[in-house]
């Protein structure tokens, strides 16, 4: 695909707009609190849109549209799981998290334990998740921008890498939040326009759309039935577990709840996010069906075997070059907003948890903390860019669902135990974290995602020892079990401290 002037202009507009945001954000970033959490000053709807902007990655936008276009109903499973996850966030996690934590997940857990080992374990799992998610995003971004703009992979990765570094380094959470809000608005606009045009073709009759889509793909009527892609019941259920439980443990999403002033605002931001994300995922259906009908399987597959070009190609087919340019620019903004959020949460685990709290025992000055945060952001960015450059030829698409699986297995058990289980103790916290993290990593490394007898289908050629591509079905229970066993084997208990955590988590009281 050749470089088109409209694409270049819109692309530059997004770069300029986000740099202007960063310029104003940099002036307002004075303290460490500003850097990590925008000073806790976002309103509910701002944070809600920012959550949507942080969450709706290129994998959601392009990946799900492609998955539905190629696999029909089975692609829609992702949309459902990714949305219902917000009920877990709203009902069980968001408010206690906001009431107990300051900057990171480890802060929240340490509201109960004050143990370096627990903080270290929490930081380790945050960094692991961020790294996997980041490589998946950057490799995907490189490939995508290469396709959209016709530039080399390494230049594409560098552009995204440099942009995310600038946002976070200078504008911290304020810049990141506003980039995410801008992206959310652009993305929703793009989704609505394409869906409108697709529906227009069917005279706004959804029933007609279903009837006609049956005839346009090689799958025929099976396109509308589950089972085209996910044929193993346990594999499907395992994936659904990772999707619904993972979100509530993703560090970059959890971090967003510290950017508002209290639990009530955290709640209202989940509501805004859930409506936005829900509408988005409903619309993925129109994109998927539209792409199947107006682009066609062979053209989608020819552009990209993973189906990632389905949405941009659909934009071109029904809206011409202008809409194609706009959707490409939206895809670019989408990538930038997600990776910026990842850099920031990775940096907070290094600079706040490992340096500020463990090495400096919480006694670093604000200036030192800020400096550490910026160095950490730079280091996380450079390290991920280098990894992404080396990973170009690897099939890393599974890393996104792996990140969800680790978040569900390592982070969610410890969050729930910390808030809701009286007997939980430091030993249990460490065993919960490590058993979840290690079981997810080990099982994936021997799964069909990593070993496939077909060359190129996975990282290595060989027979997988573990049958499920996503091990959540086994690793999530192991995370909970690890925490339970660790807790009952250790005699240590602190009911006084739990009373404090319980009162604070449920009332939002803070000692001033």
């Amino acid at each position, binding site marked *: 695909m050749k470089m088109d002037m409209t694409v270049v202009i819109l692309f530059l507009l997004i770069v300029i707009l986000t740099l202007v945001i960063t310029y104003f954000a940099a002036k307002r970033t004075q303290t460490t609190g500003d850097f990590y959490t925008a000073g806790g000053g976002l309103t509910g709807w701002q944070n809600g849109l920012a959550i949507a902007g942080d969450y709706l990655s290129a994998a959601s936008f392009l990946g799900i549209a492609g998955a539905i276009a190629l696999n029909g*109903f089975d692609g829609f499973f992702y949309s459902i799981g990714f949305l219902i996850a917000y*009920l877990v966030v709203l009902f069980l996690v968001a408010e206690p998290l906001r009431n107990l934590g300051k900057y990171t997940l480890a802060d929240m857990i340490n509201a109960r334990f*004050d143990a370096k080992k627990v903080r270290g374990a929490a930081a380790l799992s945050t960094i692991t998740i961020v790294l996997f998610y980041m490589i998946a995003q950057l490799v995907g971004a490189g490939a995508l921008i290469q396709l959209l703009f016709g530039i080399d992979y390494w230049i594409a990765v560098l552009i995204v890498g440099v942009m995310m570094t600038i946002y976070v380094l200078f504008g911290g959470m304020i810049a990141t939040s506003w980039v995410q809000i801008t992206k959310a608005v652009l993305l929703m606009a793009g989704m609505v326009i394409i869906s409108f045009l697709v529906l227009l073709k069917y005279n706004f009759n959804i029933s007609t759309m279903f009837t006609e889509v049956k005839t346009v793909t090689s799958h025929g009527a099976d396109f509308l039935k589950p089972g085209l892609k996910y044929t193993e019941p346990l594999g499907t259920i395992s994936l*659904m577990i990772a999707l619904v439980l993972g979100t509530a443990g993703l560090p970059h999403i959890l971090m967003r709840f510290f950017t508002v002033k209290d639990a009530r605002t955290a709640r209202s931001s989940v509501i805004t996010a859930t409506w936005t994300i829900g509408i988005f995922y409903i619309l993925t259906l129109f994109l998927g069906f539209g792409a199947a009908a107006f682009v066609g399987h062979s053209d989608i597959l020819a552009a990209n075997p993973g189906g990632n070009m389905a949405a941009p190609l659909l934009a071109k087919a029904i809206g011409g070059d202008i809409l194609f340019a706009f959707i490409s620019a939206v895809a670019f903004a989408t990538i930038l907003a997600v990776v910026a959020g990842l850099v920031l949460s990775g940096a907070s685990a290094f600079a706040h948890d490992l340096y500020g709290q463990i090495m400096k025992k919480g006694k670093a000055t604000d200036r030192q903390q800020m400096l550490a945060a910026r160095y950490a952001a730079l280091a996380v960015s450079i390290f991920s860019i280098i990894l992404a450059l080396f990973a170009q030829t690897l099939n890393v698409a599974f890393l996104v669902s792996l990140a969800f699986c680790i978040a569900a297995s390592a982070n969610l058990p410890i969050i729930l135990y910390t808030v809701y289980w009286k007997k939980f103790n430091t030993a249990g916290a460490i065993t919960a974290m490590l058993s979840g993290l290690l079981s997810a990593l080990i099982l994936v490394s021997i799964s069909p995602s990593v070993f496939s007898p077909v060359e190129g289908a996975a990282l290595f050629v060989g027979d997988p020892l573990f049958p499920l591509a996503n091990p959540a079905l086994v690793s999530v229970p192991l995370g909970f079990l690890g925490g339970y066993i660790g807790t009952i084997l250790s005699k240590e208990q602190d009911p006084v401290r739990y*009373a404090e955590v319980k009162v604070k988590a449920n009332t939002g009281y803070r*000692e001033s």
Partner: protein
Amino acid sequence: MSGQLDKQERTMPKVDYVKVAKSPQFKKLMQDRKRFILPLTIFFFVFYFMLPILTSYTTFLNTPVFGDISWVWIFAFSQFVMTWVLCTIYVKKASSFDEQADQIIADQIEKGGKAS
């Protein structure tokens, strides 16, 4: 495992949280929350996992409802509706929890619950 050795220094809390936690007001809040959140959480998990379980082990969801739209799509869309409905119910209910929480802070912590 010794959780004591690596504990960080921490100032003693100014509030007697055990007393607050044992107060009838706080116990009522915890009970109300549990009664509200637990059944709904179980409900949405069951509703959600019914979808992959039914599509994996049965085929009756493929029965058409309107034209070519079959039950599986209706079930999938109802997941969205359920999410929005539960969100709305939660917000309504949570404002009564907020009132209880404010009352606990006023009665138990700011007035009576301070450790002497």
